[in-house]
C-alpha cells in the first residue's frame, strides 16, 4: 500500500517534470528556428564521460568544455607554437616585463552586457589575488604579474611582471579564461558559485543536470562568426561500454571518450562512423617517490628507466595505439619540448648500474637486495578505476623482475590513490598527466617547485641553477633553450618516467557532422570544430586525421 | 528445623507488560508439604498452578514470598547454591513430545541430571547403573531403550523416560506438571502407578499439578484447589472429593461426575 502511494507520488512528480520540460523545449524550438541562418547542423549530441559542475572555473577542470563558454585573450592554447589573438586584438611586449594588450570591441557577454577591458583587468587580478585554481599560477607565480592598468583608450591594458615574462602571450594569455566582472565581483565565495557559467564564447550553457547532461546553445552573435551547430547536447555517460553502446545505437553522434584500441575495428565497420586519430599531448608515466630510498638515488632512477621496455607495453596494453615513451618527458609533440631527448631501453646497462650501486641478489631469490643486504620490495600504486594503468603496472612488475627489482602492484580506489600520491604516501605509481602538465613549459617549472616532479626544499643544484637562468632569460628563445637543457637533465634521472604517449582516437558519425578539426591537446571536440571556416584559420588548428 | 519438606509463604506473582497493565497470577499463596507426602494442586487453566511449579523449580521468580525447602530459603539463594538443591527437586513436564531432546539418546537423557549435578563424576559404570535402575523403575527395559531416540518411542514411553530422568538422582520432591494430560486414558493410570510405587519405595514426595481430579483420588494424600491465583480449598483428598466446600471445587467435581455417569 505504502509503496503504491509512493509510486503514485513519483508518477505525479514525473508528470510535473514532464510538463515543465516539455514547455521549455517547445519554446526553445521556436527560438532556434528563427535564427537558423548560419547554422549547418541543428543539434549535435556528444557523449561525455564525466562532468564538472555548472562550468565554474573554480570548481571544475575540463578545458575543452569551459572553452565553449569562455574565451581567452589568445587562442587556441598554450600548447601550440604561436597562439593567435582572440579576445585580444593585438598584444606587444614593450620590455622584459611589460606587455600591452588591446582588446576587441563590440563583444557582448551571453547576458547581453558589454565585454570591456575592465573584465580582463578584473579577471587577471582575481586570479592573482583570489583563491587558487588551476589557472592562477600563470599570473601569481610563473610569471608573476605585478600590476595591470587600463590605458586611456579604455581598450588597452598594460601588464607589468615581477620578472621577465616573455611567454605572456604564448602561455598566460592563451590559458586564462576571461570572466565577466559584473557577475564575479558579486560572487562571495567562488567555490560555492552555482550559477550557470556566463562567458563570451561561441556557446551558451543553457542547462546542466548533474551526472545527466549539459546543454548548449549557439551564441549567434559570436564575434568570430555564428557557430556551425545550433545546439550541443552532451549526455554524461560514465561507463565506457554504455558510451559506445550509445554511439553505435545512434543515440549520440560522437563522444569525447576516446576509442579503446580493441574497439577500433568494430567501430570502423559501422556505417557512417569515422575515426580520427589525435595526439593528446598526454603521457602515461611511472612516478617515483624521489624523497625515499632507493629512488632518492639518481642512478637508481636512471637504472629503472633503462630497464623499461616501453615498446612492449605499447604493443600489449595499447595494442600499438600510442608511442613508446622513448622521447622522455615532457610530451615530444609540444613545441616546448627538446626534440633530442631520449630514454632508451637497455637492460644490460640497467643491471650494471644497479650492480655498481651495490644492489645485488645475495640470497639468489631472483631479486636484488639493498646494499645493506635487506630485502627490497617496492609498491606500484595505481587507481583501481584505471584498468589500463593496472595492466601497465603489471607489465612493469614483470619487466622490473628482469633487472632484479621486486615490485608489487597495489590498487586503491581513485580518491585514495590521488590522496596517496599528493601526500607523498607512495613508493611509485602509474598515472596519466595531461597537456597542462606536460605541454605547458611554465608548468614544467611549477612542477619542479611544487613537489610534483621535485620539491623546493630538496637540494638539486644543477636544476636550481637552470631555473634561475630561466627566470632571468628575457626572450622566448632563450627560455626555450634553457628549458631544453632542463629537460635533458631531467630525463637523465627522471622522477616521473614517461612510459608511453597515448594516441587518442575519436569516433564520430560523419553523416550528422563532419567538420571537426584537431586543436592540439584538445582532440577533435573543441570549440573550433563548431566555428566557421574563418575562425578556424585564425587559430592554429589542424584538419582531422582519419584512421584508415 | 521443621518437619516440612516444602513450605510456601505468601507467594505473589504478576506479569508486567507496562506499569499500567499487570496480570496477577498468584496472590498470596501459602501451603506446605511434609516429607513423603503427595499433594495434588488442582485448578482450571489459568488458575496459576503451573506458575507455582515453575517458581519452585526456579524457572520463574516470585515477586514476593518465601519458599522454604527443608528449611532453606530458595528465593534468597544465589543461583549457584540453588542449583545444588536441584538434586532434591526434579520436575516432570506436561508434553512428552516436547520435553525430551530429539538429539539425545534415551540413556543420555536419563543421565542428564547426573551429568549436570556431577553425581558419580568420572564413574561411568556407576552412572550407567543408576540410569538402568531408573529405567527399570519406570518399567522400561534398559537394554532395549537405552540406545534409542525419543522419536522411536510412543507418548507413554516418552513420559516414562521423563519420569526416569526425574527419578535418577533420587530427589526428595518431584514437581509433576500435568504429566498425564497428553496421554491416552489407558496410559494415565500406568504413570500414576509408577509414581506411587516410587513414593512407596523411596519416600519421594510429589507436587502433582493437574486439572483432572479423578486422577488424584488414589494418588494424592492431600489436595489444594486453586482458583485465579488463590487457594480456595485444601484438605485430605477423599474429604475434598466427597465433601467439597467451595463452589468452585464443587463445579470441578460435578463436571467429572457428569462425564462418569454418561452425561447424567
Amino acid at each position, binding site marked *: 500500500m*505504502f509503496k503504491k502511494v*509512493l*509510486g503514485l507520488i*513519483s*508518477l505525479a*512528480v*514525473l*508528470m510535473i*517534470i514532464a510538463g515543465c520540460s*516539455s*514547455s521549455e523545449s*517547445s519554446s526553445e524550438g521556436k527560438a532556434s528556428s528563427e535564427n537558423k541562418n548560419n547554422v549547418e547542423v541543428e543539434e549535435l549530441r556528444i557523449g561525455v564521460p564525466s562532468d*564538472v*559542475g*555548472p562550468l565554474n572555473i573554480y*570548481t571544475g*577542470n575540463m578545458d575543452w568544455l569551459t572553452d565553449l563558454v569562455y574565451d581567452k585573450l589568445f587562442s587556441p592554447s598554450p600548447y601550440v607554437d604561436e597562439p593567435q589573438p582572440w579576445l585580444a586584438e593585438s598584444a606587444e611586449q614593450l620590455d622584459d616585463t611589460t606587455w600591452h594588450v588591446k582588446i576587441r570591441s563590440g563583444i557582448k557577454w551571453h547576458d547581453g552586457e558589454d565585454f570591456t577591458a575592465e573584465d580582463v583587468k578584473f579577471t587577471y587580478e582575481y586570479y592573482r589575488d583570489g*583563491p*587558487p*585554481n588551476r589557472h592562477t599560477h600563470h599570473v601569481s607565480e610563473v610569471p608573476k604579474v605585478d600590476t595591470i592598468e587600463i590605458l586611456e583608450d579604455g581598450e588597452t591594458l598594460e601588464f607589468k611582471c615581477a620578472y621577465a615574462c616573455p611567454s605572456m602571450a604564448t602561455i598566460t594569455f592563451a590559458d586564462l579564461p576571461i570572466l565577466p566582472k559584473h557577475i564575479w565581483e558579486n560572487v562571495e*565565495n567562488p567555490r*560555492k558559485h*552555482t550559477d550557470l557559467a556566463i562567458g563570451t564564447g561561441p556557446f551558451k550553457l543553457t542547462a546542466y*543536470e*548533474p*551526472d*545527466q*547532461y549539459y546543454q548548449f546553445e549557439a551564441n549567434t552573435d559570436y564575434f568570430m562568426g555564428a557557430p556551425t551547430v545550433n545546439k550541443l547536447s552532451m*549526455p554524461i*555517460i560514465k*561507463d565506457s561500454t*554504455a*558510451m559506445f*553502446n550509445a554511439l553505435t*545505437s545512434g*543515440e549520440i553522434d560522437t563522444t569525447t571518450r576516446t576509442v579503446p584500441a580493441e574497439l577500433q575495428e568494430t567501430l570502423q565497420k559501422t556505417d557512417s562512423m569515422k575515426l580520427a586519430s589525435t595526439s593528446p599531448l598526454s603521457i602515461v608515466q611511472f612516478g617515483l617517490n624521489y624523497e625515499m630510498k632507493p629512488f632518492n638515488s639518481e642512478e637508481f632512477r636512471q637504472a629503472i628507466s633503462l630497464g623499461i621496455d616501453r615498446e612492449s607495453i605499447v604493443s600489449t596494453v595499447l595494442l600499438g595505439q600510442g608511442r613508446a615513451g622513448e622521447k622522455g618527458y615532457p610530451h615530444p609533440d609540444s613545441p616546448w619540448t627538446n626534440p633530442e631527448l631520449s630514454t632508451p631501453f637497455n637492460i644490460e646497462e640497467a643491471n650494471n648500474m644497479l650492480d655498481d650501486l651495490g644492489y645485488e641478489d645475495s640470497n639468489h631469490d631472483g631479486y636484488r637486495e639493498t646494499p645493506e643486504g635487506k630485502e627490497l620490495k617496492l609498491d606500484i600504486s595505481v587507481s583501481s*578505476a584505471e584498468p589500463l594503468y593496472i595492466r601497465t603496472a603489471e607489465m612493469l612488475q614483470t619487466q622490473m623482475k628482469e633487472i632484479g627489482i621486486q615490485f608489487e602492484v597495489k590498487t586503491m*580506489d*581513485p*580518491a585514495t590513490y*590521488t*590522496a*596517496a*600520491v*599528493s*601526500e607523498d*604516501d607512495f613508493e611509485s605509481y602509474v*598515472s596519466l*598527466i595531461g597537456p597542462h*602538465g606536460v605541454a605547458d613549459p611554465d*608548468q614544467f617549472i611549477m612542477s619542479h617547485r611544487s613537489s*610534483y616532479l621535485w620539491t623546493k626544499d630538496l637540494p638539486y643544484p644543477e636544476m636550481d641553477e637552470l631555473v634561475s637562468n630561466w627566470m632571468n632569460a628575457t626572450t622566448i628563445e632563450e627560455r626555450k633553450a634553457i628549458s631544453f637543457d632542463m629537460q635533458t637533465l631531467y630525463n637523465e634521472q627522471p622522477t616521473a618516467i614517461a612510459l608511453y604517449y597515448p594516441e587518442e582516437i575519436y569516433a564520430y558519425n560523419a553523416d550528422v557532422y563532419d567538420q571537426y578539426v584537431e586543436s592540439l591537446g584538445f582532440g577533435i571536440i573543441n570549440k573550433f570544430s563548431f566555428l566557421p571556416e574563418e575562425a578556424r584559420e585564425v587559430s592554429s588548428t589542424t584538419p582531422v586525421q582519419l584512421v584508415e | 528445623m521443621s518437619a516440612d519438606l516444602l513450605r510456601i509463604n505468601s507467594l505473589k506473582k504478576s506479569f508486567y*507488560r507496562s506499569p*499500567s*497493565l499487570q*496480570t496477577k497470577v498468584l496472590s498470596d499463596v501459602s501451603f506446605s508439604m511434609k516429607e513423603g507426602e503427595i499433594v495434588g494442586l488442582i485448578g482450571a487453566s489459568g488458575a*496459576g498452578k503451573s*506458575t507455582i511449579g515453575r517458581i519452585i523449580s526456579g524457572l520463574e521468580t516470585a515477586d514476593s514470598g518465601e519458599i522454604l525447602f527443608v528449611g532453606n530459603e530458595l528465593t534468597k539463594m544465589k543461583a549457584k547454591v540453588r542449583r545444588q538443591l536441584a538434586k532434591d527437586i526434579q520436575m516432570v513436564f*506436561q508434553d512428552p513430545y516436547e520435553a525430551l531432546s530429539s538429539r539425545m539418546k534415551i540413556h543420555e537423557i536419563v543421565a542428564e541430571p547426573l551429568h549436570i549435578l556431577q553425581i558419580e563424576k568420572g564413574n561411568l559404570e556407576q552412572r550407567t547403573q543408576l540410569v538402568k535402575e531408573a529405567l527399570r523403575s519406570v518399567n522400561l527395559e534398559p537394554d532395549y531403550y537405552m540406545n534409542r531416540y525419543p522419536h522411536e518411542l510412543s507418548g507413554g514411553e516418552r513420559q516414562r523416560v521423563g519420569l526416569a530422568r526425574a527419578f535418577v538422582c533420587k530427589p526428595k520432591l518431584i514437581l509433576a*506438571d500435568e504429566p498425564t494430560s497428553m496421554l491416552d486414558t489407558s496410559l494415565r493410570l500406568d504413570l500414576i502407578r509408577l509414581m506411587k510405587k516410587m513414593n512407596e519405595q523411596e519416600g519421594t514426595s510429589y507436587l502433582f499439578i493437574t486439572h483432572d481430579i479423578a486422577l488424584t483420588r488414589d494418588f494424592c494424600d492431600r489436595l489444594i484447589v486453586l482458583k485465579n491465583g488463590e487457594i480456595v480449598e485444601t484438605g485430605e483428598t477423599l474429604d475434598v472429593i466427597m465433601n467439597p466446600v467451595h463452589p468452585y471445587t464443587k463445579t470441578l467435581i460435578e463436571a467429572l461426575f457428569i462425564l462418569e455417569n454418561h452425561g447424567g
Partner: protein
Amino acid sequence: MKHLAKVKNKIGQYILVIFVTLTINFALPRLAPGDPLLYFFGETTINELTAEQKQEALHSLGLGGSLWEQYWTYLKGVFTLDFGTSIKYGVAVTEVLAERIPWTLLLVGTALILSLVIGVSAGAYSAWNRGKKRDLTILTGMLTLESIPGFWIGMMFLSIFAVQLGWFPTFGAVSMVQDGTTWGYIKDVVSHAILPVLTITLATVGSNYLLTRSSMLESLGQDYMTVAEAKGIKKRALVFKHALRNALLPIYTHFTLSVGTLLGGAVVIETVYSYPGIGRLLYESVTARDFPMLQGVFLLVTMGVILANLIADLTYPLFDPRVRNRKEEKGEEITHA
C-alpha cells in the same frame, strides 16, 4: 495506553539508532584518505597549493575547522535539511537529491512492486502445486534467475535489446530532446525505464518467490487449512483468503526491509544503464569524496532504511491481529497451553 508506551520505547530506540548511524555516516568517509580538494583542483594543481591555501579552500567549501565543528555543522544540517553545496556538482545537495529521488523511486519502486507481484503469485502457485512438474519448472527457473548477477543480466539486456535490436535507449532516464507532449515524455521515460526495471525485477524476483513458496507451504500445512477445506469453500478462497493471507506476513516484513536497502543498493544496475539514481549518486560521491553530497545521500538512504523498519514495526499489527493486543511478550508464557 499500553501500546503507546511500547511505541515510545521503540521510537526512542530508533532515535538512538539514527543518531549512531548518522555519526557513522559522518565518520566513515572521513576515515578514508583523500578529500574533496583533490577532485576540486586536480592532481597537478593540488601539489602547488600550500597548506594554508588548502585550509582556506576547505573552509570556503564549509569543510574547515576541527572535526567537532564539522560534526556540529553536519548535525545542524541534518535537522535543517541543509547540506550545503555539492563539491563535485557545484549545485545544492538538496537540489541534486530532489532531482534523483523520483528516478530512483520510479526505477526501484516499479521493480520492487513487479518483483513482489510476480514473486508472490509464482510462489503461491508453486506452493499450491508443490511437487508437480509446474512447481519444479518454476522453482528451477526462479533459482536460476536468482543465481545470475544483476549487472550481468543488465549488460546482456543492453547489448541485445538496446544495441542489437535497438528497441530501447542505451542510457539515462529520459532523452534530452523531447517532442514537447506529455504523452511523448511519458513514453520516453517508460522506454528508458523498461530495461533497468526488468533487470532489477529479475534479479530480485527469486527471493520473493522462494520466501512466498516456503511461507505458503507453511500455512498450507496448518490445521486451519484442513478446517477451511472441510467447510467446502472454493479453491480460490482457500488459496488467497486462507493460505496467502497468512503467508504474506513474513513477505511483508521482507518487503518493507528491502525497500530501504534497494534505495541505496541499485548502484550496479544504475551504473550499467547510466541511470541517474540515488545508488549511482552515492557511488560517484564516494569516489569524489564529495562530503556534503555523501552526507545528503547517506541521510536519505539511512532514513529510508530506518523508516521502512519503523513502518514495518508499526504496521505489522495491521496485518497480523495476533500482535495487536498480545497478552505477553514473546517467550514469556504465563500459563501452560
